[in-house]
């Protein structure tokens, strides 16, 4: 029998197929495929693959799926649309090609979205992260009334003006999967389908326990005093590394400069950021304290970015 693919009902991609398809798409457009960064982050932007790589003049293209932890968004697995940990597919194109919007729309077609049958709009939505000293101009991309992507032209990062700027495309994978599979709850998304038996494994099977247990920890069990202790320890260590970078003599040789563990300093800064989010979820940060703590993290992020940019430019000059 000859099958006619355009008449046959389309089976929407599983969660993991969706990820494959997007990764495949962007890999074939010149992106390095990275793995998720293995330190807790609230968004794909915070991974060093974005935060540090957008600094400086070197062209760079990368795509990676980043589990993004937001303790305050946890709902004990009870809310069909909200998660403590969701997955962002993050794409960085530096500098952004002229046809970046067209490329993005092609990527939607690559995951089976027929643009003639769906209403796509680019609606103004600028992005700003006070903790990272970063902001950009862009849109939220709406598909039939659903926000599926944040599209941003980064203008500044770690307090440093970017030149060239970078284009950032962030897909909300759970939302897109639920949309394509037409399910009302994230937990009903088909994560994987066994090819021989057709047996389906849902998102709930894979992740529900994690949502419940981390909600319990984040909202009830996390020890506030210890979280503050951790925060201070990471902050001190990060500062110590930054101090070392500052004290490096100007005539230090290339090797000494390249050995400066700024990437480690950035990890420590990320730890602080996550601890702040945990403390916030525990309701342990008053409004007045909040501004101060954000400023402390921002101070670390900005200092790391600055030192990293210097390290890169010196390496390039050498």
């Amino acid at each position, binding site marked *: 029998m000859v099958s006619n693919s355009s008449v046959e009902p389309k089976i929407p991609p599983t969660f993991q197929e969706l990820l494959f398809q997007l990764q495949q798409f962007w890999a074939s457009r010149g992106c390095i495929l990275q793995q998720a960064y293995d330190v807790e982050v609230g968004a794909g932007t915070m991974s060093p693959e974005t935060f540090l790589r957008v600094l400086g003049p070197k062209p760079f293209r990368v795509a990676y799926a980043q589990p993004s932890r937001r303790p305050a968004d946890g709902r004990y697995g009870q809310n069909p649309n909200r998660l403590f940990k969701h997955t962002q597919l993050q794409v960085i194109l530096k500098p952004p090609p002229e046809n970046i919007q067209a490329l993005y729309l092609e990527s939607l077609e690559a995951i089976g979205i027929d643009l*003639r049958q769906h209403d796509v709009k680019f609606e*103004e939505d600028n992005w700003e992260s006070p903790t990272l000293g970063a902001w950009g*101009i862009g849109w939220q991309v709406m598909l039939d009334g659903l926000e599926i992507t944040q599209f941003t032209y980064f203008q500044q990062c770690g307090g440093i003006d970017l030149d060239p700027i970078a284009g950032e495309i962030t897909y909300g994978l759970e939302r897109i999967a639920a949309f394509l599979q037409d399910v009302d709850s994230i937990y009903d998304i088909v994560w994987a389908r066994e090819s021989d038996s057709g047996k389906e494994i849902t998102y709930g099977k894979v992740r529900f326990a994690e949502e419940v247990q981390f909600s319990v920890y984040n909202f009830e069990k996390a020890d506030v005093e210890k979280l503050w202790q951790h925060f201070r320890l990471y902050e001190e260590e990060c500062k110590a590394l930054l101090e070392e970078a500052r004290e490096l003599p100007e005539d230090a040789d290339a090797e000494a400069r390249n050995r400066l563990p700024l990437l480690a300093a950035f990890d420590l800064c990320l730890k602080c950021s996550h601890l702040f989010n945990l403390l916030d979820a525990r309701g342990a940060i008053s409004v007045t304290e909040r501004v101060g703590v954000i400023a402390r993290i921002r101070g670390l992020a900005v200092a790391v970015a600055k030192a990293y940019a210097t390290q890169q430019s010196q390496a390039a000059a050498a």
Partner: protein
Amino acid sequence: MPVFLLEIGLEEIPAGMISAAQSELAQRIEKLLTRERLTPDTQTDALRVTSYSTPRRLAVLAEGLLQGQPDMEEEIVGPATKVAFKDGAPTQAAIAFAKKSGVEVSTLKTIQNAKGEYVSATVHRRGRTAAEVLKDGLAAEIAGIYWPKSMYWRAGKPERCVRPVRWMVALLDEEVLPLEFAGVTAGRASCGHRVLHGDAPVMVKTPLEYAKALAAAYVEVDPEARRQRIRKALDKATRQIAGARWREDEALVEIVTNLTEWPSVILGSFEQEYLTLPDEILVTVMRGYQKYFALEDSEKKLLPNFLAVLNLEVDDAGAAVIRHGNERVLRARFNDARFFWDVDQKIPLIDRVEMLKSVTFQKDLGSYWDKTERNRAVARRIIDRFDPPLFLFEPVKLETFTAIVDKAALLAKADLTTEMVKEFTELQGVVGGLYARAQRLPDGVARAIHDHYKPASQEDTIPSLPAGSVVALADKVSTIVDMFAIGLQPTGSKDPFALRRAGNGVVRILVEDDKLNDRLHLAHVCFAAMQNTKAIDDAVLRESIYDFLLDRFEFYLRESGNVNPQVARAIRKAGTTGSDYEVDGLLIGYGKIAGFAKALDAQVGSPNVLAVAELLKRTANILRQAKEKKIIFAYWESEGLLRETAEKELSRKVTEVNQAIQQSYREGNYEAAIAAIASLQPLLNAFFDSVMVMVDDPQLRDNRLALLSRTESVVRWAADFSELASI
């Protein structure tokens, strides 16, 4: 005559910025053409400029410009004659000047100016062609467009714009004008609708074919046409449900007009059960988040339906898919709202008041808990100042009224701690009112909480009940006073705490709330808020606050009352707007003052008013000059010192006019007050004709000044007529 077209193609411009940029670009091009003498100067061949916009483009069509600038003779001044000629022969300076100017030395002339005698050259300037002028001048105009927020996109940061510029079309008749901006060279290739037309370039042959060429590529470039198309499509989709209509929302129509290039509309529905959520919440979710229009039945009850505006044209199958997607999103949104509602009910408003201690109002003014306490105290003092004090809104007793106001002021800000308001910030107040009702608080309290941010704009209504008005007044006025006290008053275009809006709200309530406006004066409200602040001991600060509010009143008269600006100014300076607000125990509130303003506005510029205004201006001038000479005179003339008939008669008349004005205010018959003031005209005329004011006898002089001063202040109690001379 030539026709010119410019189209700038961009990535999606924010909807709210498109209209302003469209008209700015049109104006810039019109000004450029005028400045460069490319516009015809006859009435019949006037330049016609049309402009277009979509989310992805701004375009301007200019018809009837000149082919080129007319040639021009220009006189250029060179060196002084004595330098240019020695003994009648041209010097090196003259030769160089002639060469620079491109003329023969023999054609140089001499001219005389303020500095002496100079040589000059008449230079014939060839006009540049329109093509040259536009090609050279347009880039600067494009770069000059104002954007509230703009970005860099090319390496090296050569230019900024709202979004990256991707193409340009520039045609002078059939010819391409290859102007350059942001690395883009203009041609004749435009872009059609991203999806419906695809990537093929849309070639524009001539400027006048632009709109048609784009329409063939599924882009309606005229926003007005899109707006009409959307309105028609909304009507049509609504007709699918018998008796339904879509809730009119001009602002939302404007937004979706600027989000689409080829709009269509689909009708969607949601489950009946969500209608148990309050209308305000349902509409906010649909409108604010999804940009959907709400539907209602003939009794204005919400229907479980919505209208979504698409940037697409689809067949039935596509419409079904898109409808399904939008319904899915809306259902999730409504579920969220219901979840917030349920969670929020676990902590009643009264228990949330304490939580306000951790919500900052302003860093130097403390938390919203502090703000709440301030509002309560100010509200209480406002009630105490009611004049007459016996406050009788049948059947509510004063104690009951006071209790309702206090409870509402106490709970008014509590909703800032709810999940619902954190999600839908624009519903602050509304949510508090809805929760108060759900928590079985008295209806008056719920409505006062609900209304206390009102009026939020010029179009918004004022609070529906006096209790809400009192809480709203207390909240707004105390914010204004407290912000001024710490130096955060608005300056120029900066008004980060929206104090002008708060001031407009205060004024509108004092004018328009007819339960309050005869019992409460701006001075009462203002001083109620100033008590226990540093304003009470600081006359300059007090004055600046009161002045700020009078500015708002003047603005209100002009904008909402459509009152002539000079009348608004005259009323602002009236005695009644300040501290002189009582007549024999009768309070002259802002309702009456605005009533008088309207009556005066109807007669302003009439011969009667003009004539008396002229004389009162003269009066004011004499008084001012006397004060400048440091002459001190009484506020009331002494009868025994009146000599001339004209001054005796004027004195009698002023007393009579004073009574007539006050009587007319009592009766609300403001025409009578204006007639009384106008009746001063013959007497003032006679006075100025036959009485000398600045005589040598200081006693006589000062008495006449006192008479004029009383005349002036009797009239100015109602309005400063000297502002109305020569309209």
